[in-house]
Each structure stands twice: as structure tokens, then as C-alpha cells.
């Protein structure tokens, strides 16, 4: 199964197995990674599954759609590599993807 590395703000690192087709958010929730809240359950409505994609991965993911861009603009501490993890589906091509979490989601 493809692997994801999720690094919390304090540096705690989680190796997460993420089934292809599952969103990165759902993989993190299933693995009980603290720091991903996902209050709306993946509807791109709350920006509480905000993450930063590691620099070397940023260009390899599909671009965010306009709704996600607008949400990200209003997330806490947005950066150029910000994404909502509920909007990205895992695939074998993303095996080894590294995500960093913000200090807080709200």
C-alpha cells in the first residue's frame, strides 16, 4: 500500500498507509494523526485539514480547483505549498509523499 509521511508542527512524524483512491485527509483520520480535524468530512467547506506539501512534491500533485484556492487563502497561516488534504486522492504515484501540518487548524 502507498505510504504517506505526515509531520506534525512539533516534529512528530507519522508513517501512514494510504489506500489508493482514499483522500489524504481520510488516511490521516483513519491513522488518528492529531492536527487534522476535517470538521466538514471532506466537503471542502472548513479548511481544517490544511497541510503543507513538501517542496519537492509540490509540482507533482494536481492543481487545486478555485474553491480550494479560495478556502486556502483564508486558512490559518497559508503558504504557497498549502493544500486541503481532503481534496487530494492517494495514488501509487504519490507513494512517499510528505505533508507538514500547520501549528493549528483554527
Amino acid at each position, binding site marked *: 500500500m502507498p505510504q504517506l509521511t505526515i509531520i506534525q508542527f512539533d516534529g512528530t512524524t507519522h508513517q501512514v498507509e494510504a489506500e489508493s483512491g482514499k483522500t489524504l485527509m*481520510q488516511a490521516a*483520520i*483513519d*491513522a*488518528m494523526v*492529531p492536527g487534522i*480535524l476535517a*470538521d*466538514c*468530512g*471532506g*466537503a*471542502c*467547506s*472548513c*479548511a481544517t485539514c490544511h497541510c503543507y506539501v513538501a517542496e519537492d512534491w509540490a509540482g507533482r500533485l494536481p492543481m487545486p480547483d478555485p*474553491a480550494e484556492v*479560495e*478556502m486556502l*487563502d*483564508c*486558512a490559518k497561516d497559508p503558504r504557497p505549498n498549502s493544500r486541503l488534504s481532503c481534496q487530494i486522492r492517494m495514488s501509487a504515484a504519490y507513494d512517499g509523499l510528505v505533508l507538514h501540518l500547520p501549528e493549528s487548524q483554527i
Partner: protein
Amino acid sequence: MPSSEMLVVIGAGQAGAELAVQAREGGWAGTIALIGDEPHLPYHRPPLSKSGLTQAHDADSLAIKARATYAKAGIELITGRKVAHVDLARTAVHFHDGPSMRYTHLAFTTGGRARRLPAQDELHSDVENVHTLRTLADAERLRAGLVPGQRLVVIGGGFIGLEMAAAAATHGLNVVLLEAAPRLLSRVTGATVADFITQVHRDAGVDVRTGITVDGLETDASDRRVTTVCCTNGERFDADHVLIGVGLEPDTTLARRAGLPVDDGIVVDACCRTIVPGVVAAGDCTRQHSALYGRSLRLESVPNAVEQARAAAASVNGLDRPNTGVPWFWSDQYDIKLKTAGLSQGHDRLVVRGRPASRAFTVFYLQGDRVLAADAVNRPADFMLAKRLISERLAVDPARLADDAQPLKTLLPSP
């Protein structure tokens, strides 16, 4: 050292699932049992009324957390079992069948059920084509029953009724929507948004009627099918299916019979504690005082269920983590994404940002210079910023709020 403490969570919906997992993450060392009366893993309900009509959903694709997550968290998931009663004095949960369970800490996350119309009480219990929507089983029954070209009469112009009307019209059914109040969404939005949503539905071919009250459901000779919806003004609507979406009734039966104070919702404090030590409640079944609005609220919403569950889980672990969240709601209909932050009751001024004709606008509800609530139509950024304006009780200049040329962000204090 293993703990002898036992947390029992009654109700395996959004609040129950969150509470059980958060209690463990927060350091609960004892056992945890999560009891649900449906046969499924806890699942997301919002998609049922949004995409549930056109897309087959199963309990796994809607699961809030994977089955393995509960095992990993040491949560015993007990599905398909109904609690018969709770004995607070003896700290026991009794089932209709099988052995009882003891607890040291107890959570009520019993949610709610679809409110019934008086006209339903006169129907045969096996009637085939009258629907409500609360559970996955309800959604499956609707999806299997509704065929393009058929006539669907939706009773109730709230979120569930409107989302189902949108889904059915898109699916090719002929839809009539009947609302008793003078306008749609009267409990949750103001007239500007209600009028806009009415027009969106009419443009999609839905026959929207407001100020019309249903007083009877006529059946065929078999008594198993409703054929006509009858209204007090004499109008009659022929139907192949009837969907009743007239609100939610909190499921407080177990708590009330156990002796907990119930006032249209189990009464809890800011940390979701009931008056009985060790007993908490969270989600649609509760009533809680809101410091933000200065009154007690019973909210029917996923974000509230999740926020309250986190507060309740902290209480179970002996910590104070009051629920201070801004209530919020969302609804998807056609290409419209409506997001509401806050509660508008008591507003004395409306500010509209953007134009409804552009299908992207926001209505702010103000009391003096304070934003009480906002309805954002296809404007996620306005919604996010409105949540901050509301929670931080920031004073705003209505003229700047209305000026769409000024980024809303400039209304926030600089970081």
C-alpha cells in the same frame, strides 16, 4: 496498569464516533464501548441528501473512520443494538436482549429522528412511497424507488427538503415542493437568500409553493401507496413518491427516562456535562448555553456535533475544554454552495456583498456594528472570514463590508 474505568457511548453517529476516539486520544486508559442501533460503522450523513440519490453509497464509502481505527483505539464497536434503558443510580446500560453493561462514565450521543407530520399517523405502517431521510437505509430506499419521470412531492422547504428537491429534479423527476411558512428556509436564513434559492429551484423546474399546509395524504385502495397530497387550501398534488422533510426531533428518550433534565434537548453545560457527574452528552440531542449569543441553543449540525464531542471527551478525561465554536451549516443544491456562519436572530441590519444575479454573494446579519451571522452563496472566502468576524466579535464598518471592491480580509486586524 490497566484502568478499571469504563466509558460507554450511546449513539454511534458523528458525535459518538468523535467522542470515543477523542477520549482515547486525550488519554482515557479504561475501556470504551460505542453502541449504535444501525448495523453500520459510524458514517457521514450529509452526503445522503446531497449525492445519495444519484450515487450509490455504502457504509464503507461513507465511514467517518475505518473499522481498523476503532480497533487501534481500543474501542469496542457494538452495532445493530438498541439500548432499552439507562439506570443512572446503578450505573448500568440495559438492552432489549442480552447482558447489561456497567459504566463509570457515560455519554449520550443519541442524535435525532425525522419529525413526523400528523397526516403520517393515519397511514398504514407499510406504506411504500412515503419517505423521510435520516439514515443510510432511508437513502437507499429513496434511491431504489425514485425513477426519472415520476412525480415527487417534497413537504418542507428546509435544507433536507431543498437538497432532495435539487437532487430529484437533476435526476429527471417532476418535483413539487410545499412549504408551510411564507418563505423557504425560514428557520435559518433571511428573505434575500430564501428568494434567491426559490428562484434557483424554479429555474430548475421545481414547482415551489410557500404558505401552503398539508393536511392529508390520500392512499389507493390497497392502503400501501399514497396517491395524492391534500392541502388546507383545497389544492391537491398527485404523487408517485412523497418526501417529508419537516425537521428533526432530538432523541432524548433514554436520557429523559433516566431522569436527566431535558428541555427540547439534553441540558448540558459549556463542557457538555449533564448534572450527573461522569455523564456527558453531545450533538443534535443536546441543548447548551452559548456565550456568544447569550442564550441556550439546540443545533442540528455536524460541526456542532464534532465540537461538542471534543468538549465532552475532554470532560470525560477530567479536563475543561468548553465548546466556543461558531455554529455553522452548509448546503449543496445544484451548483449552489450555501454556507452559513452564526445565527441571525436579533439582527437589526442586513449588508449584501456582491449581487444575487451573479450567483455569488454574501448576506451579513448585523446587530449594531457586530456581525451575528452570514450566508455565503458560492463565496467560501467570505464564509471563512465571517466566521472570524463572528467569533472574535469584531466591530465592522457596514459600508466597507458592502464594498465588494475591498478585500474582506482588510476588515480583520493585522496579524
